[in-house]
């Protein structure tokens, strides 16, 4: 091991900041507590809901027990959002791994 160089320290510090700047919630692990699937609203209604947000839908799918949506908002930002399959309530929204919206009282860990 050689002596530690300043660029290396700056690099490590920047990386550390980046890793701490975002909330640690794997989006594959969002839980919606949505119950049996036969009570879920159809995906077509989810699409309408996304449209009503003013978003442009790219992809809608089932992720765990949630509806997950990839979309762009009016500003052109890429969003990944989770909706409750029964109420179609918007629960949590990420932008490139950063949480930018969370419904009041919602706990993504279930």
């Amino acid at each position: 091991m050689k002596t530690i160089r300043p660029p290396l320290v700056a690099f490590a510090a920047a990386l550390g900041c980046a890793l701490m700047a975002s909330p640690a919630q794997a989006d594959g692990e969002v839980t919606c507590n949505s119950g049996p699937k036969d009570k879920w609203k159809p995906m077509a209604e989810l699409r309408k809901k996304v449209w009503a947000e003013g978003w442009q839908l790219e992809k809608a799918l089932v992720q765990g027990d949630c509806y997950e949506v990839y979309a762009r908002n009016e500003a052109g930002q890429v969003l990944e959002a989770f909706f409750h399959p029964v109420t179609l309530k918007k629960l949590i929204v990420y932008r490139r791994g950063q949480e930018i919206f969370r419904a009041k009282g919602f706990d993504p860990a279930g």
Partner: protein
Amino acid sequence: MTLLPRATAKAILWLLLAVPAALMLRGLVGGEALPMDLLHPSGETSVRLMVLAMLPGPLIDAFGPNRFLRGWLSIRRNLGVAAFAYALLHLAIYVIDMRTIAAMLDELGLPGIWTGWLALFLMILPAAVSFDRAMRWLGRGWKRIQRLVYAAFVLALAHWLLLDWNWKPAAIHLLPLAMAWLLRAWRVSTKVTRERTFA
């Protein structure tokens, strides 16, 4: 590799390296995949090729050269260049997906995004000097330039982690390298003590 002429062997290697890209592009052209669906496979292929390019060095230090490791070492530069090519493909897909420069600039400050850009920039120099003549020109400096790949690799993993918040896939790609590095460190340290004892 000794059974085939060098040029033929190299052509076959590059044909194999191009297979994942061909599959991705087929999905895109055929309409089965959105550009955003290809961000993951192109990025992951780049990371995997980086791992493959970085493994033979420490393995040879740990086990000593054998036929297999020497063969692997002889294609290492190709693997590194392919990793860079997949990073460029990843960027091209990103540009197609984002559509406008403004949208790309708008998210440049997000940690999950700038780590990707920085990883790519750090790969440019090592990739640019990876032909024989540059190696001869640069001499020992060449190795120093190739060390940028370590930083690029760490940043690529950070980029992955920051987008995904799932540590497992990133950790799985780090594991073989971490093991090879540990093995090398262990071999080197035991060798040193052995030499001391018998000195």
